[in-house]
């Protein structure tokens, strides 16, 4: 949540997530802290003596997780008696002016302050107003590096309650009732998966969090890891209790150094507080969690490849069945869920499965986090109820094309998804509707494509990605994607014949039908969906080519 209720004593929340860091949040936070600690020039010395360290006295400057509107970063929220005000793109030189305002010591009113002019962001705009934060409810409020703040905001309360009051079966009952489906892209019913693992013959079980968020343009899971890692750990611990696991791994991609750092710190703090380890929260439940870092292989987001990678092997997928729920890590039943799925668990238990199921659409319940990027005015993170229309997300919340032009298409589902043309923007965002259009929900990356981009080029871009990331184990994916890329080269260069297009479609069907894992099976999707909705751009040249 970005806007907070009015509070008597002011505080500043500075976004410390990767997106804002790349826009200069580090120097800004340092400048804000320095200004708050040292006092502003010309200020009475009594106030200058106040520091952030003294509770109840000075202005508190806190580093928090993602404040959503990443494209305007670095973001700072000022919470005071008049509610929250948000500032974007503030240079470090503006820090003193903001601190003076927040302390109510500025000689001029906020509206007249030149250093802040043009940096104020409207919190009433649809981008913020239409959000429904559940997974992200603590993201942007708590300091991700301080477990005390997470606990003060209700963190681990559900884990404690579950351990004291509920049986594993009762926990699974709530998750089943919630209708939660896997947020990593597959949309498999989470309750069913938990049941499958829990009902395996007695023996060791593992719980694994898939934090290998590889789709380009997707940064939802990173925001949870960087902004509220304790929520994920709580969800994982509840999941482990529900399926009877006492050991687990969080598999994070190596490209997320800050997420890894904060996750490791969170694990250490949770252990220290007795919320992980032996006899958690005074119960007889034990859980050891470890972080495993990937090494740059997109295919490791596929669950069987991910398990191989955790075991220290090449990240190649294997055929299923047996499913990991039956035989996963070292042959033991293994529950694998994505970050967002697990992070939704605490709120489901707090409010009840039925409450969660009442949000969203018929077959897709609850909320979904999307990362908006590309040719769009407001790049950032949104969490909305499932079933919200694409138009609402892209045009109303995202503000449409930055130059005022029309949106051409929206790409969802990354290299496994497809492009949805502007004419179909009224489609509700849920698992089934997107599949019906030849795209997919995917993990939640939404890249908006403007009028200036040719669709065959988009298809070629994704195919080049798939060629680069194919693990090489099965022939249809290893060789098929290379051939598809060659055909797409001809399409982009406008020398494809009708026969080429036929070959393209036939090969797409073959790769889709015969590849071993999801990466290969879905690799043709960007081609098929652009062929379906933008065929005129592929325009076969009559008689061209050999």
């Amino acid at each position, binding site marked *: 949540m970005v806007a907070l209720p009015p509070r008597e004593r002011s505080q500043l929340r500075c976004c410390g997530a990767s997106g804002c860091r*790349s*826009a200069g949040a580090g120097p800004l936070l340092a400048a804000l802290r320095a200004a708050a600690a040292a006092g502003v020039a010309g200020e009475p010395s009594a106030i200058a003596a106040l520091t952030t360290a003294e509770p109840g006295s000075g202005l508190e400057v806190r580093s928090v997780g993602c404040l959503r509107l990443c494209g305007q970063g670095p973001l700072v929220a000022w919470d005071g008696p008049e509610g929250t005000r948000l500032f974007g793109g503030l240079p470090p030189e503006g820090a003193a002016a903001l601190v003076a305002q927040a302390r109510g010591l500025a000689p001029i009113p906020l509206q007249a302050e030149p250093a802040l002019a043009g940096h104020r962001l409207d919190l009433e705009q649809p981008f913020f107003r239409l959000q429904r934060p559940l997974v992200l409810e603590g993201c942007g409020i708590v300091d991700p590096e301080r477990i005390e703040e997470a606990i003060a905001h209700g963190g681990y309360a559900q884990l404690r309650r579950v351990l004291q009051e509920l049986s594993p079966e009762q926990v699974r009952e709530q998750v089943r009732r919630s209708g939660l489906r896997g947020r990593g892209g597959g949309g498999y019913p989470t309750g069913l998966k938990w049941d499958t693992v829990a009902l395996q013959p007695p023996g060791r079980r593992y719980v694994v969090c898939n934090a290998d968020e590889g789709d380009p343009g*997707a940064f939802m899971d990173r925001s949870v890891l960087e902004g509220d890692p304790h929520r994920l750990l709580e969800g994982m611990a509840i999941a482990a209790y529900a399926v009877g696991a006492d050991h687990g791994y969080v598999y994070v991609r*190596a490209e997320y150094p800050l997420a890894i750092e904060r996750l490791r710190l969170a694990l250490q703090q949770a252990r220290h507080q007795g919320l992980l380890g032996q006899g958690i929260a005074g119960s007889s439940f034990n859980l050891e969690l470890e972080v495993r870092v990937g*090494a*740059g292989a997109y295919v490791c987001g596929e669950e069987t490849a991910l398990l191989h990678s955790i075991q*220290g092997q090449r990240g190649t997928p294997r055929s299923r069945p047996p499913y990991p729920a039956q035989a996963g890590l070292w042959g033991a039943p293994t529950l694998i869920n994505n970050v967002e799925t697990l992070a939704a668990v605490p709120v489901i238990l707090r409010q009840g499965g039925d409450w969660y199921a009442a949000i969203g659409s018929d077959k897709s319940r609850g909320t979904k986090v999307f990362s908006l990027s*590309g040719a769009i005015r407001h790049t950032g993170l949104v969490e909305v109820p499932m079933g919200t229309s694409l138009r609402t997300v892209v045009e109303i919340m995202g503000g449409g094309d930055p130059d005022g032009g029309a949106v051409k298409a929206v790409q969802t589902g990354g290299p496994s998804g497809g492009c949805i043309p502007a004419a179909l923007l009224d489609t509700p965002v849920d698992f089934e509707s997107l599949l019906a259009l030849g795209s997919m929900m995917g993990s939640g990356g939404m890249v*908006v494509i403007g009028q200036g981009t040719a669709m065959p080029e988009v298809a070629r871009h994704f195919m080049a990605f798939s060629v680069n990331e194919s693990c090489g184990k099965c022939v249809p994916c290893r060789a098929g994607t290379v051939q598809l890329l060659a055909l797409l080269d001809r399409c982009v260069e406008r020398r494809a014949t009708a026969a080429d297009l036929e070959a393209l479609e036939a090969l797409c069907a073959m790769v889709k039908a015969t590849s071993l894992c999801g990466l290969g099976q879905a690799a043709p999707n960007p081609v098929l969906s652009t062929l379906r909705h933008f065929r005129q751009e592929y325009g076969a040249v009559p008689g061209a080519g050999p």
Partner: protein
Amino acid sequence: MIRRHGGQSHGLIEVLHQVQELDGFLSKPALLQVARGLRLPLSRVYGVASFYHLFRLQPPAEHRCAVCLGTACFVRGAGRLAVGLRRRLGLDLDQTSGDGRWALERVSCLGACGQAPVLVLDGVLFTAPPADQPQELDSWLTALGLPAAVALPAAVGLPAAVGTP
């Protein structure tokens, strides 16, 4: 280091990460040592080291330039930026120059989609170049300290042999 991971074979990737952090890359003697320490066949260690994109089997170049080709960057002109870089460095993507001075790499999404397109030069992130204007892009790249463009047969489609080690 191997002992810290309990000498267990499933710690292989973690061990390789740490070796690379120390040495900058995974040399043959280092791989042999890891194989012995973890009691694994060298083929298994090499198989894993060569599978993952982030493991380098060659010493890193003096300067590394990584261009983000994530979808958000692509939509905002990363393709043109990549062509500009290829011209300036005389390298294809994922190539290192023969003298070991420059390496041009591709990455998929650095998570700075709000500032797209982006590139990382020797560990420093540079954002939002004027990818649409060739001349301004050229001076932007010059300001970063990239060498002047080398003579090439064509702007796009460099011969694969250029600068191969």
